[in-house]
């Protein structure tokens, strides 16, 4: 082997090893994040954290019970609002509409998807807070729901279109009407993918902070019903982290650990569902 070949081979091995290093660095960031959260926040995850309300400023012993419930409420509202629009809208463009209308709808969804979350926050403020003269859980749910729409819509459309032609033709041949075909054959066939899409959209908005700052605001107590401002995990993390109180810092870490664990579990669950493949209805 001549020297030039040796050099080229060396370069080849070296560069390929470097790419491996890049991949390792990227992946290890995830583990570093988890390790940091566990290290700093693990000890603060106690019974108080899950059951107590925030204590007055400067005093210790408070918890984030209202923020946990608040986040749950907000996410539930977001799902109830965002998923129907995404899901039914996707059915329309996948099954009923012409290509021009489908293009417009897809384009709008992409626009919405690309909008920075702070812009969605401004939008939700002018639609759901300003006219009603108060901050509320509903407004926060609306903001998060708007963010869920495009993710749900595009993914659902993709999975619906993936359903093999043979299934549709079979149903049609048996005399089923269009909507019956959709409801009993196509959607169940794509059901895993659609569920995955919803879960991923859910996980995505679970961590969003910016849209909530101007809509759900915050609450030092339990938020009653849906018309009052509410505390939420991401906003609490933000407020506590930038403060100077050590106790608040510890709580922020703990909240970060809880939030990230929840999001990762949902993501893993979603991918597990998807990887089992598309089921064919009996």
């Amino acid at each position, binding site marked *: 082997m001549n020297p030039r070949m040796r050099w080229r081979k060396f370069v080849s091995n070296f560069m390929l090893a470097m790419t491996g290093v890049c991949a390792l660095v990227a992946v290890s960031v995830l583990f570093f994040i988890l390790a940091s959260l566990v290290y700093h926040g693990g000890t603060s995850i106690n019974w108080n954290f899950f059951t107590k309300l925030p204590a007055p400023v400067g005093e210790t012993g408070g918890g984030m019970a209202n923020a946990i419930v608040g986040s749950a409420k907000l996410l*539930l509202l977001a799902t109830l609002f965002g998923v129907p629009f995404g899901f039914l809208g996707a059915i329309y463009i996948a099954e009923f509409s012409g290509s021009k209308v489908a293009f417009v709808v897809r384009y709008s969804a992409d626009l919405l998807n690309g909008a920075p979350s702070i812009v969605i926050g401004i939008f939700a403020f002018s639609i759901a807070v300003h006219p009603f003269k108060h901050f509320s859980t509903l407004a926060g749910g609306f903001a998060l729901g708007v963010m869920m729409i495009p993710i749900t819509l595009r993914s659902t459309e993709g999975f619906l279109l993936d359903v093999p032609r043979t299934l549709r033709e079979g149903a049609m041949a048996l005399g089923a009407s269009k909507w019956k075909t959709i409801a009993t054959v196509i959607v169940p066939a794509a059901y895993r993918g659609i*569920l995955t899409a919803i879960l991923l959209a859910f996980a995505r908005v679970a961590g969003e902070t910016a849209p909530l700052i101007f809509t759900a605001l915050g609450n030092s107590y339990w938020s009653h019903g849906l018309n009052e*401002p509410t505390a939420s995990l991401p906003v609490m993390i933000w407020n506590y982290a*930038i403060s100077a*109180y050590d106790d608040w810092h510890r709580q922020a870490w703990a909240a970060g650990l809880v939030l990230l664990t929840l999001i990762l579990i949902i993501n893993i669950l979603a991918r597990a569902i998807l990887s089992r493949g598309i089921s064919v209805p009996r």
Partner: protein
Amino acid sequence: MKRITRILLVAFALAGFFIARAALSITGAGATFPYPMYSKWFAEYHKKDANIEFNYQSIGSGGGIKQITEGTVDFGASDGPMNDDQLKAFQDKHGFPVLHFPTVLGADVLTYNIPGVTVDLNFTPEAIAGIFLGKITKWNDPAIAGTNKGVNLPANDIYVVHRSDGSGTTYIWTDYLSKISDDWKNKVGKNTSVNWPVGLGGKGNEGVSGLVKQTPNAVGYVELIYAVQNKMPYGAVKNSSGAFIKADLASVTAAAAGAAKNMPDDFRVSITDAPGKTAYPISSFTWLLIPSKFSDASKRDAIKGFVKWMLADGQNYTEALSYAKLPKEVVAKEEKALNSIQ
């Protein structure tokens, strides 16, 4: 899977209802300056009357003024009194005026984090203006060293920290600087949010104290309690009589003495750079911003009830948190003013 989701949905709905008790919830937002005080007050008041919850969000005085004007909160809070334009904006929007109710007296202090320096430093007004104008850039500058003989000030760069949000604490600080420095008055002015010549921004008193605490050689202005609670050193300031005074209950109360006797009817008054040998020059009242008319009678009564309690029992909690009580004359005047809320 579908059944489980249905069950979960029902469970959540029920949970929502259970938590929807008959408690009256009142939302307020604004100043971070008195947040430790308000947070304690509202917690104590809730113990007294469990049916009323005051949800106070500390988003900065600018936020308090804006949100009460928008009408998205029931009351606001600010340490910079609303100026005439802002009052007019409220009046134009709602058709009735908004009222100011002083709650406590507090002080803006200059807190710093200088490696190796653990004592309290003395600052002249010129030094403070110079630091915040960016003219004095090192800790061992003669303007600072001159009044701190015997202290080993390092030759490090000064890192200025100010507020990034709209803040009454900023209003108080810039109000003082505008009084003692023409340069500041012309270049920067006084407001809840200004165009700072130098420095980084922190969000809220919490953010500024956090930044100063973590950044060596940093200096910032915060409400007294934030420096105390976080065990951060803060300096003494030379007042108009020439004495170097550190902020504490006595010196802040002394600053309000003159204003107490001549309090205007709308309670908007500035007590920075107040006369008096023992007065701390960067003191201020802080106000609740309460609309003079309420459409919801229960909210109106709850707020009036709280203010009444605040003026009486509430004042007993202030000193533990390093806020000074309101002067007696001011309390009496406020009790009368409460009646004008309909």
